């Protein structure tokens, strides 16, 4: 079971993702954007890591989405192979039309707008540890295949453009009805408070991650690869250096389980 960890110019989380993939027992390989795209069919799954592909020129994800490798990934997604886009990877999946999965650009991850007491208190880049609630049933999505509905996870975010907005009035309703909203920002008790600092970027309905209708393409703003090992956890987390796995490991274990089941 071999995973291609995609690397565009400006990607900066590929090595952490590769370590995570290998640690859960999958084979992994960095796949540079300028390799022949047809070679992607040799892999069983794909991760598009975070970073700043093409320096976010024009807007985050726009240039990378036009690369031939993204055309090849669309073909692999169509036959059910799993793809996880993390942070900038999520932005690339949105710009390429793979998410929310209507085949066209149906939403945007716009600049963060932090609202508190109905007033904008800050904008732009922000990084912090946040709480996430898993809002889909287990097995609904490849990246949360083994996670119970309602489970709370802690992961870091680090982005300037994660604010999900759409002009398609029916899209959010459709995402909710189809259980395509995989993770939402919440507080430590699981309450989805729509304001900062719980809703960390102003995203519509606290959405942090969505999948395509088939569930095999996941885009998420938080970084599971940075919450994979116990030593990566923040000092205030009682699991730090405790020997327990970090919560981000569940995302990679889920991908592995999906591939095993699919085979």
């Amino acid at each position: 079971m071999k995973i291609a960890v995609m690397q565009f110019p400006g990607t900066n989380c590929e090595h952490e993702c590769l370590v995570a993939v290998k640690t859960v027992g999958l084979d992994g390989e960095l796949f540079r954007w300028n390799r022949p795209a047809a070679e992607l069919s040799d892999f069983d799954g794909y991760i598009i890591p975070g970073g700043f592909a093409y320096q976010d020129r024009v807007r985050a994800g726009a240039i990378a989405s036009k690369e031939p490798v993204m055309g090849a990934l669309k073909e692999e997604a169509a036959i059910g192979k799993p793809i996880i886009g993390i942070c900038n990877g999520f932005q690339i999946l949105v710009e390429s039309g793979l998410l929310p999965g209507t085949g066209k650009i149906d939403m945007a991850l716009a600049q963060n707008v932090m609202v508190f007491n109905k007033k904008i208190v800050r904008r732009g880049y922000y990084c912090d540890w946040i709480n996430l609630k898993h809002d889909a049933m287990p097995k609904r999505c490849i990246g949360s295949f083994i996670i119970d509905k309602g489970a709370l996870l802690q992961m870091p975010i680090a982005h300037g453009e994660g604010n999900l907005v759409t002009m398609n009035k029916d899209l959010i309703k459709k995402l909710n009805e189809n259980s395509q909203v995989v993770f939402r920002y919440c507080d430590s008790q699981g309450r989805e408070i729509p304001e900062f600092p719980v809703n960390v970027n102003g995203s519509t309905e606290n959405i942090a991650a969505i999948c395509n209708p088939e569930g095999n393409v996941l885009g998420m703003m938080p970084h599971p690869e940075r919450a994979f090992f116990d030593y990566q956890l923040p000092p205030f987390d009682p699991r730090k250096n405790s020997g327990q796995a970090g919560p981000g490991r569940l995302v990679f274990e889920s991908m592995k389980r999906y591939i095993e089941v699919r085979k």
Partner: protein
Amino acid sequence: MNKHTINLRVWLSIPDAEAATVKNTLVRRMGFQDILADVKKERLFSIEVDSGNPEELAKDFVKELVNENKESCKILIDELKFELGYVPVKVALHIEDGEAISTRERLRNRLGFKNVVDVKKATIWKLYLKGQNQERVAKEIAEGLLINPHKDSYEILAKAKITA
């Protein structure tokens, strides 16, 4: 009331890597190699003031908003004109533009220009196109790469506004 709109067209005088990337993507990935000769980019600040001498104010704004070590600019008062030879495509956010609001607040509150009423920001993509149907091609390019319709809007500036 002495309302004026001060337009600052600002462009890099050093090589513009973003414009080069856009050109490469359009030519190498999106099939515009026979139509597109070049792409250049400008930032546009449209600053509305309700008093003061607009020419003098514009010079002050340039000092604050333009880095003259690497950027050049052109000041236009109450008009927006572009040169012949390219199709100017104006791209701006249709959702709230935090950077424009920050610029307005900076000019008004930190720098004391209390006559600043509003600031709008946009990017002008200058598409140097060959052949016929240039507006149609510019529309294709705008919708295919330059905007995400869920947050950006674009305007192909009318021919009437394109003057020498």
